[in-house]
C-alpha cells in the first residue's frame, strides 16, 4: 500500500509551493498505523500505442487498520474481509455513494495463542477466503475458523487443525477447503464432516519446505497449484496420489525467495508474484 503511494510522489514537479517562510524549529511528532485504501484504477479502455495502460490509480478512500494487513478478499461488491496480524478478522464496507469505508463487523481474537503473554495473546491471521456468505480464516495458531457474514460468533472452529502455521486457504468446492502450512503439507478439509481431521494430506518429498500460497484451477477442480518458500511452484492433481504432478522453479531460490507469493490462476495462465515489500 505504501509502495503505491510512493510512486506518485516522484511524478509531481512541485515548483510553486511556498506557503510559509523557511524556519528551522522544533517539530512535534505523532504515531501512525496501517490503512486500508480503495483505489480507482482509472478507465481500463485507455491503452497507449503499444497497448500499455496509461491510467493513474486514484485514491478514493481509506481507513485505519489495527495491525498489519496479512490478507484480504472481497466478500461481495461492497464488503471486504481483512485478516490482521493481531488475530482479528474485520469486514469493511465500502460505501460507493460517498466514497467512504467503515468497519462493518469484527471478530476479535479469531486467532490466538495459548500463552496470553506472547504477542498480546493474538496470533496473526494469515489467510482468508470468501464464498459469500461464508468466510474461512486460518492463522499462525494452526486454527481454522468458519464464519458467516451475518453471525456474531464463528460457525465452526477447528482448534489445532495443524501443528504448524497455516499460511493460506482456498475453497476447493463449496464444502471443501484446501490449506497449506509451514511444514510443506497441503490438506483438504471436508466441512460437512464434524470430525476435526483433514480428509486428505499431501506433501512434497524431500525437505519440508514451507508452502506459502495455494490456488485452484478455475475450470479443472482437481488441479491445484502451491507456491513454496524456496520459489518452487508445484502443480498437484488431487485425484491421484499425494505427490505433485510437476514442479517449476518460478523464482530463484536464494536471491528472491518469496516470503509472500500471490498466486492467481485464470484460464490457462498462472501468475505468481514475489513481493519484496518496502513498507
Amino acid at each position: 500500500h505504501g509502495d503505491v503511494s510512493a510512486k506518485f510522489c516522484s511524478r509531481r514537479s512541485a515548483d510553486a509551493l511556498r506557503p510559509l517562510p523557511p524556519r528551522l524549529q522544533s517539530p512535534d511528532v505523532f504515531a501512525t498505523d496501517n490503512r486500508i485504501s480503495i483505489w480507482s484504477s482509472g478507465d481500463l479502455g485507455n491503452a497507449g500505442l503499444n497497448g500499455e495502460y496509461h491510467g493513474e490509480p486514484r485514491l478514493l478512500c481509506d481507513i485505519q487498520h489495527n495491525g498489519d494487513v496479512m490478507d484480504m478478499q472481497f466478500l461481495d461488491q461492497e464488503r471486504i474481509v481483512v485478516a490482521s496480524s493481531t488475530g482479528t478478522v474485520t469486514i469493511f464496507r465500502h460505501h460507493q455513494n460517498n466514497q467512504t469505508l467503515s468497519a462493518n463487523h469484527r471478530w476479535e481474537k479469531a486467532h490466538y495463542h495459548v500463552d496470553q503473554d506472547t504477542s498480546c495473546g493474538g496470533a496473526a491471521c494469515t489467510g482468508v477466503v470468501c464464498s459469500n456468505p461464508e468466510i474461512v480464516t486460518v492463522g499462525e495458531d494452526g486454527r481454522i475458523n468458519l464464519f458467516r457474514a451475518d453471525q456474531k460468533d464463528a460457525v465452526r472452529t477447528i482448534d489445532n487443525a495443524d501443528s504448524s502455521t497455516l499460511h493460506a486457504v482456498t475453497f476447493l468446492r463449496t464444502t471443501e477447503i484446501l490449506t497449506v502450512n509451514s511444514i510443506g503439507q497441503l490438506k483438504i478439509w471436508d466441512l460437512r464432516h464434524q470430525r476435526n481431521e483433514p480428509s486428505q494430506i499431501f506433501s512434497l518429498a524431500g525437505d519440508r519446505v514451507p508452502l506459502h500460497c495455494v490456488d485452484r484451477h478455475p475450470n479443472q477442480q482437481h488441479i491445484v497449484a502451491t507456491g513454496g518458500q524456496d520459489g518452487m511452484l508445484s502443480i498437484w492433481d488431487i485425484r491421484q496420489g499425494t505427490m505433485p504432478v510437476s514442479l517449476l522453479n518460478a523464482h530463484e531460490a536464494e536471491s528472491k525467495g518469496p516470503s509472500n507469493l500471490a498466486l492467481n490462476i485464470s484460464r490457462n495462465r498462472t501468475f505468481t508474484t514475489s513481493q519484496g515489500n518496502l513498507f
Partner: protein
Amino acid sequence: GPGRARAARAGRWVRRRAGRDAGRMGGAGPGAADEHRPVTVVPGAVPRRQLCFAWGPAEVLVCETLFGRAGTGEGAPSTSRVFVVRRDQDIYIQTLRKLFNESHGIFMGLQRSEEELAGKSRKAQLVQVSKNYRSVIRACMEDMHQAAISTRDPALQGQYSTQVSILSAMELIWNLCEILFVEAAAAGPLLLRLLDWVRLHVCDVDSMVREVLSSENPSKHKLFWNVVDIFVLQGRMDEARHLLSKEASANPTSMNMYKILDDLMKKMPVPSLGNTQTLTELELKWQHWHEECQRYLQDGTFASNPHMESICKILLGDEDAILEKKELMTTWYHFLVTRLLYSHPTVKPMELRFYAQSSMDLFLGGESSPEPLDMILMAAFEFEMHQVIKECSIVLSNWWFVAHLTDLLDHCKLLQSHNLYFGSNMREFLLLEYASGLFSHHSLWQLGVDYFDHCPQYGRVYLELHIERIPLSTEQKALKVLRICEQRQMHEQVRSICKIMAMKALRNNRLGSALSWSIRAKDAAFATLISDRFLKDYCERGCFSDLDLIDNLGPSMLLSDRLTFLGKYREFHRLYGEKRFPEAARLLLTLMTAHIAPCSFWMTLLTDALPLLEQKEVIFSAEQTYELMRCLEDLTSPNPGSAPFQDDDVETTKVEMLRLALARNLARVIVKEGTVEGS
C-alpha cells in the same frame, strides 16, 4: 571482534554527544542552548530521586536510584521500576514516509550509478540526483501542506505547518549547496542560479502580483510599486517593464521618464548560460551600461517621480536604496543576491563569502541576531562544507538531511577523506546514524538494510547488531528478516532468529512450527528439545499430538537423534495399529539396542512391549526375549553413575509384570523353537 567493539564505543560516544545536544532545537545559537533545553518528566518516577540511565538503540532505560537530589541517600529503596523513555521521532510521521522511501530509491540509484562517466556528464548526472532529492522534498512539502489545510485539529495543523517550514528550509539549504558545491557554478552562471534560487524560495510574490493585476486599475493599486520593486530586486526585468507600461499609459506625463527607464532595463547586460560571451566582454558592457544609468540619475531625469528614481538607484547598485526595500526582500540572502546583481554580476564563487558577511551585517543591522538557518547558509557561502553539515546535524531533528547530502557531496569527491577519530569517515558515520534510526520503525527498517550495505567499514557490523533486535511479531516478518540475513551470509543471525521463532512457537505450544524453524536453522539441539516435548506429551496423555507432523518428518528426521527416535517410535505405533506385530517388535527392540531411544524412555518402551508379549501368538523370538530381559535388568539394577531407579509401588508392579511376561514368553518361545515346525 574488534570491529564490533569499536563500533559500539563509537555509538556510545555519539549518543552521549547527541544527548547533550538533545535539547537544542531551533535555539538562537550555541550559547543560548542551555536555556532552551526541554525537560521531560518521567511519569511515575519519585520526584526527588536521582535517576540513572542507559542508552539503547532508540530509547533510554531509566530507573530510580537510592540517592536524593542532594546526592545523599534518602530513605528506603524505591519500587525498582525501569522506565523506557523514547524520544518521539520523525520516522513516525506518515507524510514523511514518502520522503524516506523515495530518497532511498534515489540513494540506491546513486550508489549504483556509472562511476566511469567523467567530467561534464558525471557532473550533470550528480546535479540530476540533487534535483531529484529536492523534488522529493517539495512533493513532501505539498503533501504536508495539504494535510495542514485539510485537518480540523488545530494542534495537528500547527504540527504540519511546522513540518512544512522545516522542509522548506531543508530545500533552501539543499538548493544552495547544489548550486555552490554539486554544480559548482562558475562566475557568470553563478549569479543566474542564485537569482533562480531567490525567486523560488524567498518571499511570496505571486499573491501580491495576482492582487494587483486583477484589480481594475493596477497602476493605482497601493501595492503596485511594491510589486514593481520586487520584480526589479529579483532581476525580473520583463515583468517589471510590463507593469511599468501600465503606469505609463495611465500617466502620459511620465511617458518620457518611463521610456528611458524601460530602455535601461531592457538593455541591462546579464550573464548568459551559454558561451556566447566571455566574462570580460560582459564586464565591459556592464560598465558601459552602469555609466549610462549614472548619467540619467545625475541629470535628474527621474527627479519628479521618487519611485522611478529609487528604481534607478537600485539599478546602480546603491546599497541604501536597496536596503530601503528591506521589508520586500525579507531576508539578508535576498539582499545579497540583489546587491550582486546590480554591483557585481560577474562575482566569482570564492568572493561570495565577503559579500555574504557584509550583506548579513548590513541587513540585520545589529537589530536581530542570526538564526541557525542564517548560520548554515553563511557557512555554505563560505564554502565550509563541514560546517554546513555540522550545523545542520545540530539543528535538525533527524539525520535524513545530512546523511543524504553528505553522501552526494562525497560522490562529488568534495569531502576530504580524513577519518573521524573512531575510524569511519563523515559520510559513513552519518549514514550509519540515519540507518540506525530507521531500525526502530516497524517497517522502515528494510530501508536501513540497504544503507548499511553501502557503508563499507562498519555497515555489516551494524546490520548484524540491529537485525537481531527487530521485533518479530509475525512469521512473515521473521521470514523477511531471514531472507535478508541469508542473502548476506549472516549465518549466525539466521540461527539466532530461527531459535527465537522456534522458542516462541514452543511456548505457544505450536510444536510443528517450532520444528519447522529448527529444521530451517539446522539446529539439532532444538530439534532434540522439541522431540522431548512430544515424548513428554505422549507420556502424560498416552497418545501422540500432532500426528500430521510426526508421520511426515521425511529426511528431516535425521537432524537429531531424538527426532529420529520420535519418528521411529511413531512408526512402531503405526505398525502395531496395522497389526504388523513382528515388524513392530523388531523395531521396538532396535530402538533400545541401537541406543536410539534415550534411557529415560526405556521403561515406556518396555511397557509398550507388554501387549506384544501377551499376544496369543508368540512374537518375540528367544534371542529377542533375552535382549529384552537384558534391557530390563540394565534399567533396574543400580549402576554406579547412572540415575537411581524409581522405586515406588507402581514402578515395582510394572517391573514385576514385565519380568513375568518376559519369562512366560521365553518359556513359550523355547518350546516353539524347540519343536519341529518352529525351527
